[in-house]
């Protein structure tokens, strides 16, 4: 992916000619804007990019990008993208999905994509609701949530996308927020730079069917107390006054107030390449017990599925020579009829 001789691209170069059809005020707009902002920075021309999505409001995303794109079927984008990426390792592939698309119907493909570590990025627009089908609860809706399909409140324990992704030993896991545009842009960029499956959960507001679901994390007023921005090598500190932190005691974590004998050096230090357990610990931090981490939870290097598949092919060709059909057909037991 050399940047030599490439014309300098702008966000507008990545905008397609299609009208954007999300509800006014939808958080999807912000993610679209940040994506268009980040892509030119990658030095990859639009024709080398493919956006693959499932079905849902979020999955309309590819139509708005002036790149190649597939708006596939509900939940299956990871599988489509896998087939594309292994055969076309030269392309930059993005999967765009929703909480229903990725975690309900598509949960299995999601898990298998992550464990295989295909070199692509998956951005999950988590609005904790089914937007496109007008407001049923989703696997990330909190217990008790009243929706069209749960008039007495949801009873399923919600999935924690981060825990699930880590359960599949994902190599890159990050979280950001639609309204936190700078952070979002930076996170998308980090994802793009990761080699392997980069998974980003974005807290996204569906202002029509689940308005304010993330207010605690997105609103400037409350954000600092409810969210902790991860920085590699830095202790876990949060709060408007940056006076609170996270400490590990045995296998338990706790929120502590700095001062009174507790100093920064007592706090857990973030390590993106840390042990899997470290990432789990971050993923386990959920409101209201804890502030919720945003940023890069984990970023480790591991062989990618597409590389390995292509390597096997290369190796086989080296070892056995490029396949010769005529020779194959004539190998083993044959006989001549005169």
């Amino acid at each position, binding site marked *: 992916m050399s940047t030599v001789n490439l014309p300098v691209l702008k966000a507008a170069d990545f905008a*397609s000619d*299609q009208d954007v059809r999300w509800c006014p005020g939808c958080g999807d707009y912000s993610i679209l804007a940040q994506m268009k902002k980040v892509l030119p920075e990658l030095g990859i*021309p639009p*024709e*080398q*990019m*493919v*956006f*693959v999505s499932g*079905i849902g409001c979020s999955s309309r995303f*590819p*139509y708005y*990008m*002036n*790149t*190649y*794109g*597939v*708006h*596939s*079927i509900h939940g*299956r984008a*990871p*599988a*489509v*993208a*896998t*087939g*594309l*990426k*292994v*055969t*076309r390792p030269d*392309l930059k592939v993005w999967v765009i999905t929703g909480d229903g698309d990725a975690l309900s119907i598509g949960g*299995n*493909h999601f898990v*298998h994509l992550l464990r295989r570590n295909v070199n692509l990025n998956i951005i999950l627009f988590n609005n904790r609701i089914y937007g496109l089908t007008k407001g049923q609860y989703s696997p990330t809706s909190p217990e008790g949530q009243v929706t069209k399909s749960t008039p007495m409140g949801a009873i399923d324990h919600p999935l924690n996308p981060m825990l699930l992704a880590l359960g599949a030993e994902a190599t890159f896991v990050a979280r950001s927020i639609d309204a936190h545009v700078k952070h979002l842009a930076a996170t998308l960029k980090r994802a793009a730079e990761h080699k392997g499956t980069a998974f980003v959960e974005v807290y996204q507001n569906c202002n029509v069917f689940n308005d304010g679901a993330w207010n605690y994390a997105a609103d400037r007023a409350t954000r600092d107390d409810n969210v902790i921005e991860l920085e590699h090598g830095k202790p876990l500190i949060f709060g408007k006054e940056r006076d609170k932190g996270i400490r590990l005691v045995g296998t338990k974590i706790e929120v502590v107030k700095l001062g009174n004998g507790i100093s920064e050096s007592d706090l857990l230090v973030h390590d993106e390449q840390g042990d899997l357990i470290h990432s789990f610990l971050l993923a386990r931090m959920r409101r209201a017990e804890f502030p919720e981490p945003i940023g890069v939870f984990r970023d480790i290097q591991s062989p990618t599925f597409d590389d390995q*598949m292509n390597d*096997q*092919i290369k*190796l*086989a*060709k080296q*070892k*056995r*020579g*490029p*396949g010769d*059909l*005529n020779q*194959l*057909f*004539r190998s*083993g*037991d*044959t*006989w*001549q*009829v*005169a």
Partner: protein
Amino acid sequence: MSTDVASLEQSSKPVQYVSGVTVRLAGDSGDGMQLLGTQLTNTSALLGNDIATFPDFPAEIRAPRGTRAGVSGFQVQFASHEVFTPGDVVDALIAMNPAALVTNLADLRKGGLLIVNEDNFEDKDLKLANLKTSPLEEPAMENYRLVRVPMNKLTMEAVKELGLSVKEADRCKNFFAMGMVFWLYGRSMEPTLRFIRDKFSKTPDIQKANEKALLAGWAFGETTETLGASYRVEPASLTPGLYRNMMGNQALAWGLMTAAQLSGKQLFYGSYPITPASDILHELSRFKNFGVYTFQAEDEIAAVCSAIGAAYGGSMGVTTSSGPGIALKAEAMGLALMLELPMIIIDVQRGGPSTGLPTKTEQADLLQVLFGRNGESPLPVIAARSPADCFDTAIEAWRIASRLMMPVVILSDGYIANGAEPWLIPDVNQMEKIQIQHPDGSDAANFKPYRRDDMLARPWAIPGTPGLMHRVGGIEKEDVTGNISYDPENHQHMVRTREQKVANVAKMIPPATVLGPESGDLLVVSWGGTYGACMTAVKQAQEMGLSVAHLHLRHLNPFPSNLGHVLKQYRKVLIPELNMGQLRMLIRAKYLVDAIGYNKVKGKPFSVVELVEQISNVCKTA
């Protein structure tokens, strides 16, 4: 060694020449019957016989030893004339235990040779087979030429000097049986000895033991009087050329690889294991040096979707399964047809519905592949007719798919998949290339992703091409531009366009031709794996003087354009199918011809005899 063997193989016993023989090997799943059958097949093929085989094994990996459920069988017909089926009636049955005997005896012809491993007819064996008394003692045995061979003992004898464990020694008895059979039909042991040497190269003792057992079996035939004469089947007069033995699944795999090479495409194969399709996956996995990508997906849905992704990227995307897995692919097949991307979807049919009879054959997925999707979603469907024909079918499917930019379905079945026949090896360099062009972006300003050519195919523009960026999806799209469109007239237009595109396939395929008189009392119409049985039956009926012709349909959608005309040249139309009348329904609906069905859903192929009988009956009333 080979010279020793050659001299050994010179039988001094009387020899009887016959034009063809059907042999069935039956034993416990653990007895290695499939291996024995394959060796016999290959050897006969090498001898120049025409052959057709039918393996038949239980769904369990290893059903309880000695039980009826555990019986595994392999039937082969080899002949000095062309054969199209593994044979209806068995000339010789080799039964390794009582269960194998009782479950297979019905197919042995009167006077046929019945070789049993008498060591396995002890009380405990009878009990396992749910028998009170030994079938060998029954008067019915007089109908057959019964030969009792103490195979266990003789095998032990043969290998004893090697000091193997009893279990190991006992395992060699299939090679003993093989030696006997080879002697009986004057087959060469050379290929099997080669096989043993390769296969057991890491365990020299076992290698040696199997060799010894094989030779001992041969020697047993030669030295004892019990087997009587041996038989000879002369080579068949096949089209001249180089041949090899070919199984259906292997032929599909090789056909796909060949199609990829003929079209200069990278082959991507996404699949999920399922009987009886898995061997395509196994076969293709071996050829990474041909640049074949095989992806064992997490399920069938991911498998077909991965192939769609590969197709969008410009590869030859293929997915395969059997009935239950094809059901799961339905939604994505609809997507593929909306995207108008070229792909191949293969259904190796098995007994249904649901899990059904996984290891048995059936033709009951035709309507599923035609109609098993929401909305108006036509797809071309081609059915292979025999193991070797699978090779051509795969190539033709890709020719159509890539020409018309759409998924094409291939139907095979368990009978074809595991059956074998001689295959005339083609020269790949002489085969017609498959032309595929991707727009290169030089005329980007005029590019429209859904602009169509004379066959209604859209351009296959692939990612990486500057200027041709476009998005495809499952929502209805405006023709030409490919933009999402909810316009009523456009939807109607697109539904008709997709239908017409499939109809256009008829321009690429030959007209239907019949074997037999161009008009007459009866036309027998067949499709898929019943080809051989139907063809043979019609030939026999013709020899009986009946006014009957045979039409085999390779293309199930669309039909050849002259089909309606041909059907109307006969007083009656008979459509034998291994289902309840699926093709019959289509033909009746389309041509208003009062086609009659002969339908069998027993997990088994047709026998020629039953078809001949059916044909005569229908002809009588014609």
